[in-house]
């Protein structure tokens, strides 16, 4: 395994820190299965990936990661409560049709849920809109709007408001600054480029 040097793998180490040895892990929107492969090596997990795109499933097959091609919501509905120790949404929530319902399902099927997302209210994103009138394009999101997936971005403050409204327990959280590497502690809604939450439901 190469050292984690890619921006798109920003949340790998943090999630690996939250995952326990031998956990059953479900990665929703798993892409090419890189995170699950990483967790398998670090924590000997049993991991399953879900993605809608056949091309991504092909990569998972190559990596030896079990994968399920299909819709996240209907797949979750086939699992009993607490079927997984950990459910992961790594840059997935912003692409869901009904984020509220799917997150609730994730919290039902997983004992703990990790959610990582790009903070829409990060100062650079604000400036890009304010001065350039354009959204931020970077190495992880290089494509213009007309070539990328429909997305419903949100901010750290908006996500925490949501957790509060739905009485979702934030067990832990990590804010990363604009480089998605170093931690940032102050004014996260303005200063964090990326945020990762460890969630649990009240029960």
């Amino acid at each position, binding site marked *: 395994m190469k050292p984690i040097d890619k921006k798109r793998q920003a949340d790998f180490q943090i999630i690996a820190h939250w995952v326990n040895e031998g956990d059953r892990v479900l990665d929703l929107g798993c892409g090419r299965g890189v995170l699950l492969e990483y967790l398998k090596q670090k924590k000997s997990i*049993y991991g*399953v990936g879900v993605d809608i795109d056949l091309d991504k499933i092909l990569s998972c097959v190559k990596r030896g990661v*079990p*994968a399920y*091609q*299909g819709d996240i919501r209907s797949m979750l509905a*086939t699992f009993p409560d607490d079927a997984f120790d950990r459910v992961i949404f790594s840059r997935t929530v912003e692409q869901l049709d009904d984020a509220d319902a799917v997150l609730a399902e994730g919290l039902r099927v997983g004992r703990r849920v990790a959610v990582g997302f790009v903070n829409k209210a990060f100062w650079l994103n604000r400036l890009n809109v304010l001065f350039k009138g354009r959204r931020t394009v970077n190495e992880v999101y290089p494509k213009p709007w007309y070539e990328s997936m429909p997305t419903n971005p949100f901010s750290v403050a908006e996500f925490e408001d949501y957790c509060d409204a739905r009485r979702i327990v934030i067990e832990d959280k990590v804010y990363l600054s604009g480089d998605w590497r170093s931690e940032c502690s102050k004014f996260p809604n303005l200063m964090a480029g990326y945020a990762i939450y460890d969630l649990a439901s009240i029960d």
Partner: protein
Amino acid sequence: MNDSEQAPLISDEGEVGFVEYQDFVSKEPFNFESGGSIPELTLRYETYGHLNAAKDNAILICHALSGDHHCAGVHGIDERKQGWWNFMVGPGKPIDTTRYFVICSNVLGGCQGSTGPGSINPETGKPYNLDFPKLTVRDMVRAQSLLIDSFGIDRLHAVIGGSMGGMQTLQWAIDFPDRLGRYIALASGARHTAQAIAFNDTGRQAIISDPEWKEGNYEPDQGPAQGLAVARMMAHITYLSDVGMESKFGRKRRSGDQSREHFEVEFEVESYLRYQGASFVTRFDANTYLYLTKALDRFDLHSPESLDATLSSVTAPGLVVGFTSDWLYPPQGNREVVEALLRLGKDATYAELAMDFGHDSFLLRAPQLYELMHRFLSR
């Protein structure tokens, strides 16, 4: 991490070329799940590639309802048609015969050389016909395991099959978890839908209501040709799709239809189906058709307890592939198998290919299917 990691499509493909079938004969009585038995059995099979010294490179391919043991190569120089999965099996192909020893056998109950209703019962000197014991997918698989034993193979590298072959594959994974390294089930499922049973029974009724069927006791070279042809025509429609038929035939007419009688062949699609029906009766036995369709209708992994309970014995990693346009064994039926396997914490993958050719999509050469098979077998 990006599209560049996609391997190019495999080039340097070869052909398995000329092949010959073999017959495996077991002189031991074979007991069926239903309680019946036959004093001996024959399975006709073909092999491609070479069994290595460790005997751990064998792949078993399970054929579909109307398929047979001849899945690759040709039998002779004048044979125009190659085996039914020739594009998938051969040197450099996903089921690579330079690496794997590939075995494909005609199923128990079949009519292409394996013991079935049309075979002579050694105890009476006459064909079994309807005295042949009730057949299940589990019986087919257990007969195959005897063939595998005869090679001295303890553990297969993989078991692979589509449609009825996919159901055999799942049964292999359930009944012989220690004897396979992985499995691939294409266009199959845990059980027939009501619609699939309905189609099968309509086909069976076409056969049974043909006076030539004679309660199953027709002479070997005779039989309910009309009934079997109609059964095949109808079944063949279920193997295709609306979109596939529209693009292949549309409303194209045969030339010179004006001079013909009102109910003669007028449209291309009629011509195609009638040809399918007529050619099927030259190679297929009506009683086998009844037995195999019934075995498929009764196949039910949800029984006796639940799908999860049935699949709990599986240990090998599996790949299940559904096809979007398959309305005979729809994606949902394939998907539910993987959902159950994942609930049980098994290593299972579900992929769904967007192909327009209905149930028979797995028999067609498609780059994505190629990639999927190749990667899963070599991982």
